């Protein structure tokens, strides 16, 4: 397959773009593999890619029930950051950040990672101290973070309402300069193409309908395209974890599925050059390269597998948006959609061996999944290949809840709708 480059674009253009080949093959599944990965989303595809690239395990199938990337990798608001409070999270997401910084080259696919920074706003001196705590925690782990004054914020984001008389005046912010956004679909496609080139079978329209077992042990899956056996079966289906694990007889998990809505405006000329979050509610926004403002807020707050939400959150998000940007009242919301999130009991993910022999589990991403894509796949591949976690994902066990070793960045306890 041709490498992608400016030159290949030009030569192909001269040939009328007739010679481009499919980005990935469309193979039929084989009868057995070394590793089956259930879930052709960002995490499943990156896991396959790193299994092949880092561990030389290429006899791998990724099974996707619908079209590739149809889950959350194509439904998020594309922010990439590692500005967490707790060290277990910061280390993991910073590992991811470093991978993002070279991802386009690694994949030979432009995932458009744009390090335009992520700015968290504070609205009271107390909040500013909380941000300082977080920023200092990052700095002590070697992660970039800076406090910003109101004057600096006003320069960076001129459209913000910086007035002291605002209901929640802005008093400062925490900036992670290396954070940014990426083109979400491209991440799925880039990983798919990369894994495919290393021999991984990516099988779309192949829904897992059951697990093949030998006693307790998982030895393969039943699918809408027949039985497929494997030495190892990895589950990376965030959003559908409950459904898939029930097929394996695991009825209860420390996870609730919730719907998160996201929104985009009509295309605008450059309006905001960073990722921004509001401190007195839950609102975040960036601008896509096409010009649409991409934004969102809280989850709807009830169990849902429907990729659509309801009006209260729509209204809340827009109200918070205008509290920051009163000039946007006349800009229009063009499209909204919903993604189903695995909300875990402490807001942090699970990447682990088990819970059944022969099975490996990657889930519980809440709304942090997109930015985790490289590190999640990298750690999961390590865990599958070595049958033990890497230090980066060692804290993300399933039994941490039981043992009281939760990683609760928001301090909300076992109430998933608040994470």
């Amino acid at each position, binding site marked *: 397959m041709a490498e*992608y480059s400016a030159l290949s674009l030009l030569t192909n253009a001269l040939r009328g773009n007739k010679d481009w080949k499919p980005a990935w093959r469309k193979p039929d599944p084989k009868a057995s593999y070394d590793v089956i990965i259930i879930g052709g989303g960002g995490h499943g595809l990156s896991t396959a890619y790193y299994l092949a690239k880092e561990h030389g395990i290429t006899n791998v199938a990724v099974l996707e029930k619908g079209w590739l990337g149809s889950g959350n990798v194509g439904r998020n608001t594309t922010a990439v950051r590692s500005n967490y409070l707790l060290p277990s999270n910061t280390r993991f997401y910073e590992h991811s950040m470093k991978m993002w*910084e070279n991802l386009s*080259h690694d994949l030979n696919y*432009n995932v458009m990672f*744009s390090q335009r920074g992520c700015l968290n706003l504070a609205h009271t001196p*107390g909040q500013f101290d909380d941000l300082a705590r977080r920023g200092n925690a990052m700095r002590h782990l070697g992660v970039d973070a800076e406090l910003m004054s109101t004057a600096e914020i006003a320069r960076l984001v001129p459209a913000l309402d910086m007035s002291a008389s605002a209901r929640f005046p802005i008093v400062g912010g925490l900036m992670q300069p290396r954070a940014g956004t990426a083109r979400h679909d491209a991440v799925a496609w*880039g990983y798919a193409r990369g894994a495919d080139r290393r021999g991984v079978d990516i099988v779309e329209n192949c829904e897992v309908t059951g697990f093949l077992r030998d006693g307790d042990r998982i030895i393969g899956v039943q699918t809408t395209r027949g039985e497929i056996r494997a030495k190892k079966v990895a589950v990376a289906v965030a959003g559908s974890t409950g459904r898939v694990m029930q097929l394996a007889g695991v009825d209860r998990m420390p996870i609730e599925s919730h719907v998160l809505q996201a929104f985009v405006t009509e295309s605008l*000329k450059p309006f905001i050059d960073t990722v921004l979050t509001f401190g007195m509610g839950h609102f975040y926004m960036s601008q896509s390269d096409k010009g649409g403002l991409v934004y969102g807020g809280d989850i709807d707050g009830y169990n849902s597998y429907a990729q659509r939400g309801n009006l209260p959150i*729509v209204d809340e998000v827009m109200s918070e948006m205008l509290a920051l940007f009163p000039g946007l009242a*006349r800009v229009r919301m063009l499209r909204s959609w919903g993604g189903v999130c695995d909300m875990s009991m402490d807001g942090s993910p699970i990447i682990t061996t088990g819970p059944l022999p022969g099975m490996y589990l990657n889930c519980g991403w809440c709304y942090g999944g997109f930015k985790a894509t490289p590190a999640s796949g990298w750690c999961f591949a390590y865990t599958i290949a070595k049958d033990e976690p890497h230090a980066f994902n060692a804290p993300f066990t399933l039994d941490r809840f039981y043992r009281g070793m939760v990683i609760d960045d928001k301090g909300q306890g076992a109430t998933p709708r608040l994470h």
Partner: protein
Amino acid sequence: MSPRRTETGGRIDRLRTIRFTFDGAPYTGHAGDTLASALLANGVTLFGRSFKYHRPRGLLSAGVEEPNALVTVLRGEVREPNIAATMVEIYDGLVAVSQNRFPSLAWDVNAVNQLGGKILAAGFYYKTFMGPVFGPLKGTRFWMFCEHFIRRAAGLGKAGIAADTSRYERMNAFCDVLVVGSGPAGLSAAKAAADQGARVIMTELEPRFGGSANWSGETIDGAPAADWAARTVTQLEGHDTVRLLPRTTAWGYYDGNTIAALERVTDHKETPGKGEPRHRYWAIRAKTVVLATGSFERPLVFPGNDRPGVMLAHAGERYANDYGVLPGDRIALFTNNDSAYRSALALKKAGAAIVAIVDVRPELSAEMRSLATEAEAEIVSGHAVVATEGGKALSGLKVQRFDMNSGTLSGDARSIHANCLLMSGGWSPTIHLASQAGARAEWNADRQAFLPPKPTQQQWIGAGAFNGSFSTVEAITEGRAAGLSAAGATGAPAAVPDVEATPGNPDPAPVFEIKAKGKSFVDFQHDVTAEDVRLAHREGFVSVEHLKRYTTLGMATDQGKNSNVPGLAIMAEALGKPIPEVGTTRFRPPYSAVSIGSLAAERFGDLKPERLTPMHDWHLANGATMYSAGLWFRPMIYGLAGETIEQAYVREARATRESAGIVDVSTLGKIAVQGPDAGEFLDRVYTNMFSTLAVGKARYGLMLREDGLAFDDGTTWRLGEQDFLMTTTTANTGKVMQHLEYFLDVIWPELKVTVTSVTDEWAGAAIGGPKARAILAACVTGTAVDNTALPFMGIVRGQIAGVPVMICRLSFSGEMAFEVYSGAGYGTHVWEALVEAGKPFGLVTYGLEALGTMRIEKGHVTGAEIDGRTTARDLHLDWMLSKKKPFIGSAMMDREGLIAPERLQLVGLVSLDNRPLNGGAHIVEELDAANPHDSIGHITACCYSPALGKHIALALVEGGKARHGTRAFVSDPLRKRFGPVEIVSNHFYDPDGSRMHG
């Protein structure tokens, strides 16, 4: 007379002339014109530039689906970008400008992008811009360099920074029947339902009710259709159970038959009325929804189909019949179906010359032939348009013989001279709302369209063109039946209406694209060509969602209203599959773009209410600087002239410890816990015992969450045998209330306890300091306040200034202190009386800063320490964990992770370099300012302590208690503050409590 305005006809008011500007040039139009029709009447053909190639574009449509003619409307400094000119009603003084062009619409430098043509094919950006692997542009630098320019070239209009000064409002509405759309189907449905006595709401996105009746030229029951529509509207207006909403777009279909609609109340007015909102956001909860949303005409895909002057056929018809404007005087039509013949005839009648009707079908019905003859149009059947000519306006087109079955062209191209080409590629029912409601569209091979299926979970009924029933007779018949059924009536439907309409077969020929040399646009705004769709196919992006995401087909402001079906058809052909196997995307809200202002509605400019204590106005009048704490406003300091915040709080805290201070504590959460089982309930909720508390006494309590972590603390007062007053931290009040209600309602329904929020019932003033008791003694009547009458944690009732008060002796400041509660309506009286009584004693008022200072000196915890991650042990509150009884959290609090020795524990810090400490600073054992690492904890709160004369802090530090007396460093790289501290007990000041016990 404008060059394109007809002599007569249209529903504009020719007696009213309206003046407006477009791109700075003055124009006139008439009342009833849209910006599109008025400019068209003035001979304007160039309306906008496309997104990627910046190609010149004219009007494609006459309605909400317009992808090309997007403008920005200016109201002073306030900008509204990306509005379709077809949806802007002109008013005197309207200022509109074109967008996405530089320096001007006619001459746009970015049009150079067209030369990039094949390089800039779909998805090209994924394959390049990655930059070098080494050197200064490695990593993401090169991409970000390119991105800078890409972003500036992309985007449509420019958003405003100036705050919108309009108001927006919400309206909650309920009805039996909501009718969406007011064409013949919608009007008939609304009338039928209203006649049954149902509560009806009818929405129409255009200014005028009637839909196609306004421009179809048909007659209904003997009257012109437009008159029939007007008459029906009048009849509906006679029902007081009917609400008619013009200029209202039903844009979202949500669960529970909740429909979101946007009413544009004043956009068409020069100045809104007093208090009138610009937009009103209707949240309509309907028992049944009648979807009478009509259908969209589809463009045909052929080279040059985007040239200004190429327009949808019905749009041309509408401009003539609705607005009295001819889109051209030499008009050609290009069609795959019968509906264009009616358009041709209408334009002929309006005064245009119809030069040709190019029809892909080789055989035409006699009826169509006679319509063409009537329009004096040449029939060019079995042909297709293969090119258009002209620059910023159409000058002609080329046609070639076309084989409908093979799609091949043959014979010589023939030129036709025309300045307008009207096209019709068939019709797609407007099924968006049904799709949002969960229904999966079904392909109908006859109509060559996706039709709505039966409703699944929501209660809706379709009528008319929405169902693929394109004739007016069907629309009225289905509308009546839908209205009756929605109103729950079972009566026989009324007689079939008498409609005179031009004949026509509703089924088009299955032709979507003419493959010939040149760019054929599928998505006009995003410049997605048929070749882009085929490229996506070659690269494997064949599922409909991949097609959309890879090419951006259907992602423009029209959201695929024009491009969806043609795009699918081209992909289906490439795949060799029927269209339904390629699938259709599920439509998401909104149906058409919705102003963000309308969604914020009444909260635009008023995000959250302000919560005020009873003494709020007193604080303001007496120099308080207020602090926003959640929704509350609380005094931060009462600064004197020239004082800094620190000087003020140090003065306030010092004075309190030296004489006395008073602080407003009304924001503390207060919950009445009443009933025979109240004591038992509190025993279960708190870690310590409350059932044993004597009446007239208070006790400090701690609550855990179910998972064993600390949740909230506060004092609870026993006012009677079955009557407790619980206080909570200000921030957690709502959460604690819900926690209690949950356990009473769900877990322990057998307990006879009621809990009621009484936060607002009581005004609270805390007065503390060595002189506090004397001050109380000076103003309280009806009770003694000495140590016998009012011991530590005792409660008495009395009066201050004639007002009943309840006084509890408890202390947060560490001084001898009292909380004085009175009815909120008397809060200011009591406060003033206390302040007055305190004057001789040197009483000061103090705010949150001094409150915080004194609590740090005492080492009390607040939300900064009870942060959802700490345990009672971490905070040295394990003495409060009763071993005599289970309580919420008791079973889980001893898990291994919660008792680990390396957990963060509460300590005190003293700055050893005598410089201030910072909240959020971290603690390290070894200082490394250049490369900070190995944090062992962080500061939760800090202050200058006037009592100790030192800068101190509370901190959470790993294994903190064992570190008492050791030295560490604050490490605050964010603020470049590094320095030595001593780790000490959190009880800095008066650890024995001798001052408060007196």
